[in-house]
């Protein structure tokens, strides 16, 4: 049992909802008690969606348990189908329904809906939101895209199946016991009949299911970054591979003059951190390079769109947490390569452009692209490089930055912070345990301790210990930073309503780099102001307890973290008595204490700790002004 107050990620079925809500023509029937309907408000309130998520909940109660929860699921499924007429149905269970084991997959099969039904098995007691989104997207892709391919091959059994019987989703064996219910197939609605041919290919075969059933797609690796790593997808996709090879070759030898290269964009979902804005940027970027976008998924994709994913030349993976597994499957099945660079920041965007050109078979660009003002050819260039080099920004150099978020955004922020702002990284972490390896590797490179934790109290502790001047984190870290009086910008989910700004505000691409520049610099005390603070510390208004002037009036919540190991607090001007036999109580003399207060708040905690450490090491029991400056000299060597 994990004791928690705030969580970075919701349960895995919320991840499935993010995929379903992003798509068109999909409906998710979720076996869940009434309270779980809270998840709707994430979409309607936080993201301000103007439609309810396409989710129907069974809302079973205690008195249904052990009697007819299974029948309730079937009724709900049938009614939801009839009401919403989706082109594909997702079925699954939330944490509670997982325990009562009604087998939504089997029940859905028995209901015999005339559209593909995709069962989701999302282990609520092991996995979380992003995993759920990845698994859901993967299941959708492998069911619908594989089906299309079979149909294209003229697989007679599948087209027949669509007219005679409703097509079964992959993963449901016709051999499974029938569970009494209505026979929708016997009396299909006209709409269902017209719709089903579009999707008729949904494979009747059970092939490949066994291997894929219990995969843990993201475990221990970041798909699209780490090499290899099939993460449990076994080689059951043999027949598809053949089709893929043919397809891949065709794409490869297609003359460029005749056809612009095409790609899919994979990863954006509902309730994503700036996903919609990123998508706009990346579309623009690809268009400028000369690449057409075939399908964007899940955001805005219909089941029919998913079915033609295999037609594109390659895949652009924007969020490996969500699309990595599906991209790997597409690579195996259709030979589609996928991008591994996430275009967040100026340098990464350039790398991304280079990678995309390579995957598209386009010649390398001959010059540095994308910078404004330097004769750059790209219209939507970035101001970031020049802004970072302008003299004014010298004050940013070496500022200590703590980075925490999902893996994609944390890794990107670490690179941007160090290479493009000149900050010093003093901490790097993620709550996404699946990506621990990537974060550890990066942390090693930057020479910091990696933090892998989904306990916000651990993160708070790490921030306090690292003494950063800027925190780049999630809404959780924003709160922590606010309490500690440290500047903060939000770079990653979990999101709140303010992460959906009215203006276009991408993180990706060249415009994204501009946005990063503005958002990260905004909370900081500006260069000259910082010096003035240092010079006139005693000014009653213009003191270091005040916020940066452009952020409005008001005192900082706590100028100094209260974690100092010293028993003597700022309020105790005289040497304190030894607290217990073990530790020497360090006494700050009044004037030393006063001198300490003159040090700007953002380094004061560190100065205090260093001075105390210095004094302890030398066995000094009291700290004078001299000790303070001795310590300063000692540590600045």
């Amino acid at each position, binding site marked *: *049992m994990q*004791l*928690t107050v705030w969580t970075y990620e919701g349960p895995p079925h919320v991840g499935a909802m993010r995929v379903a809500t992003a798509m068109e023509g999909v409906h998710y029937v979720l076996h869940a008690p*009434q309270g779980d309907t809270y998840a*709707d408000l994430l979409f309607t309130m936080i993201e301000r*969606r103007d439609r309810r998520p396409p989710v129907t909940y069974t809302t079973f109660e205690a008195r249904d348990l052990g009697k*007819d929860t299974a029948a*309730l699921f079937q009724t709900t499924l049938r009614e939801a189908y009839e*009401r919403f007429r989706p082109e594909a149905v997702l079925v699954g269970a939330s944490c509670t329904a997982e325990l009562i084991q009604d087998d939504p997959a089997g029940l859905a099969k028995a209901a015999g809906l005339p559209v593909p039904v995709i069962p989701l098995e999302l282990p609520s007691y092991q996995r979380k939101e992003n995993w759920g989104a990845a698994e859901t997207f993967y299941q959708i892709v492998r069911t619908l895209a594989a089906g299309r391919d079979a149909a294209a091959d003229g697989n007679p059994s599948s087209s027949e199946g669509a007219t005679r019987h409703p097509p079964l989703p992959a993963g449901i064996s016709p051999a499974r016991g029938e569970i009494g219910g209505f026979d929708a197939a016997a009396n299909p609605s006209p709409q269902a009949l017209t719709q089903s041919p579009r999707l008729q290919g949904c494979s009747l075969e059970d092939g490949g299911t066994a291997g894929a059933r219990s995969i843990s797609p993201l475990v221990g690796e970041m798909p699209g970054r780490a090499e290899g790593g099939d993460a449990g997808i076994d080689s059951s996709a043999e027949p598809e591979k053949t089709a893929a090879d043919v397809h891949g070759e065709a794409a490869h030898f297609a003359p460029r003059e005749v056809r612009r290269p095409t790609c899919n964009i994979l990863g954006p979902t509902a309730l994503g951190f700036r996903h919609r804005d990123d998508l706009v940027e990346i579309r623009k970027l690809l268009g400028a390079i000369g690449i057409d976008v075939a399908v964007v998924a899940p955001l805005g994709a219909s089941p029919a769109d998913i079915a033609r994913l295999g037609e594109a030349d390659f895949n652009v993976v924007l969020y490996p947490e969500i699309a990595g597994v599906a991209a790997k499957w597409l690579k195996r099945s259709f030979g589609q390569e996928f991008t591994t660079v996430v275009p967040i920041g100026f340098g990464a965007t350039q790398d991304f452009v280079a990678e995309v050109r390579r995957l598209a078979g386009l010649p390398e660009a001959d010059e540095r692209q994308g910078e404004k003002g330097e004769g750059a050819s790209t219209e939507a260039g970035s101001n970031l490089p020049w802004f970072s080099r302008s003299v004014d920004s010298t004050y940013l150099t070496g500022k200590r930055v703590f980075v925490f978020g999902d893996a994609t955004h944390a890794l990107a922020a670490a690179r941007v912070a160090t290479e493009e702002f000149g900050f010093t990284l003093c901490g790097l972490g993620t709550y996404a345990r699946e990506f621990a390896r990537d974060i550890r590797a990066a942390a090693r490179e930057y020479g910091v301790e990696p933090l892998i934790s989904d306990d916000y109290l651990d993160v708070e502790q790490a921030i306090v210990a690292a003494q950063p001047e800027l925190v780049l984190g999630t809404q959780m870290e924003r709160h922590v930073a606010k309490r500690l009086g440290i500047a903060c910008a939000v770079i990653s989910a979990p999101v709140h309503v303010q992460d959906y700004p009215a203006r276009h505000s991408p993180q990706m691409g060249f415009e994204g780099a501009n946005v990063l520049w503005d958002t990260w610099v905004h909370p900081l005390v500006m260069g000259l102001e910082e010096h003035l603070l240092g010079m006139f510390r005693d000014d009653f208004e213009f003191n270091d307890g005040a916020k940066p002037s452009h952020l409005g009036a008001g005192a900082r919540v706590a100028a100094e973290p209260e974690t100092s190991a010293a028993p003597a607090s700022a309020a105790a001007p005289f040497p304190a008595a030894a607290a217990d036999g073990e530790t020497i109580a360090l006494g700050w003399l009044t004037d030393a204490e006063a001198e300490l207060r003159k040090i700007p708040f953002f380094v004061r905690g560190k100065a205090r700790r260093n001075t105390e450490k210095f004094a302890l090491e030398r066995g000094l029991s009291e700290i004078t002004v001299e000790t303070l400056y001795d310590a300063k000299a000692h540590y600045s060597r």
Partner: protein
Amino acid sequence: MTGAAVHPGRAASQAQGRAASPMAGCAERPILRERGQREVFCGLTGIVWLHRKIQDAFFLVVGSRTCAHLMQSAAGVMIFAEPRFATAVMEERDLAGLADANEELDAAVSRLVERRPDIRMLFLVGSCPSEVIKLDLSRAAARLSERYAPDVRILNYSGSGIETTFTQGEDNCLAALVPQLPEAETTSPQLLVVGALADVVEDQFARLFSAMGIETVRFLPPRKARDLPPVGPSTRYLLAQPFLGETARCLEERGAGRIAAPFPLGAEGTTLWLKAAADAFGVDPMRFRSATAAAEARAKRALEPYRAELSGRSVFFFPDSQLEIPLARMLSRELGMALTEVGTPYLHRQHAAEELALLPEDVFLSEGQDVDRQLERARAERPDITVCGLGLANPLEAEGLTTKWSIELLFTPIQGYEQAGDLAGLFARPLDRKTRLKV
């Protein structure tokens, strides 16, 4: 597809529902009963206000990641002053064996008690997963109580979505408190006001009762867990909230007697509520008038401008907190609004009897929910204002319906004379906005 019984399998159990004991007079009022998808929070949500109300109590949900996520989403804002609630998230290994889960729970509690030495009362709150795996929280509470007595009292109740709808969580919490209340030692009657109220409202009521000469007034829940009000056969209790069926039953087991009354919403509602207590305590009518007249007049004056704005406007209630019926009564009688459908998750006919008697004849009542059907009715009705939960509000606004978030009615002080105007204002503002906005 006909009628209300959408899930035929469930219809049979309908009769044993909470809507029991028919009362003369109101039982005849027709009501649509629906069993379909509910779009309502579970009882865990009550913790969001209860943990603020009882200042030295802590609420530990024994549940899943879903429960923890609900708590942080329903709160709407993350209250980052460390809140006095948390979730012990069950993981795979807890589900493997119950003994294991109990040990884990003990460990979680001991960590908690260590970190929060200020806590005097700890509620173990059951969730759907803990109930489905039959984790016995009452035994856990008894076991842990022994260990932490007398410093921390440990109680348990269910806030699960399979047992409770939204405000029923508070009902179960208060019901769990009742056996803990000390025995009233006096035989002279004392008044117990039951149901969490904002502190400011509680203070106003205490002053009013005192002005009419009712001196021994206590409130449940108390602000301090150490300060539990006594109860016994001499206790007369007055419900401040309409959703306290189980708490009332427990109080009656302790011998307390209920004072039947409408609920203290609006000027009229507050007067009738106070009057019921005054009559039960034999307060002289003159004294009652002098104690309440000024505040009542103030409330009516505060309502006047809103009446001009809201009169004749139609309102539709989606079921949420069980406050719907008293609210509908107040809106129709004091502000002249036209009621269309008034949906409530449960109707406690006995406790709502006085309210039902005041409702207009033509109101359409519904109990339970089938959210898609209800949405169809709302769309057909096109009410001027629709009271609904957070999941429905923006989609309805996008369809051109003006909405009022029902949860605000729980998170804002609305009871009593001084809040009557604020309550009306909550309904007027969305309409006001509609007339202002040109976008």
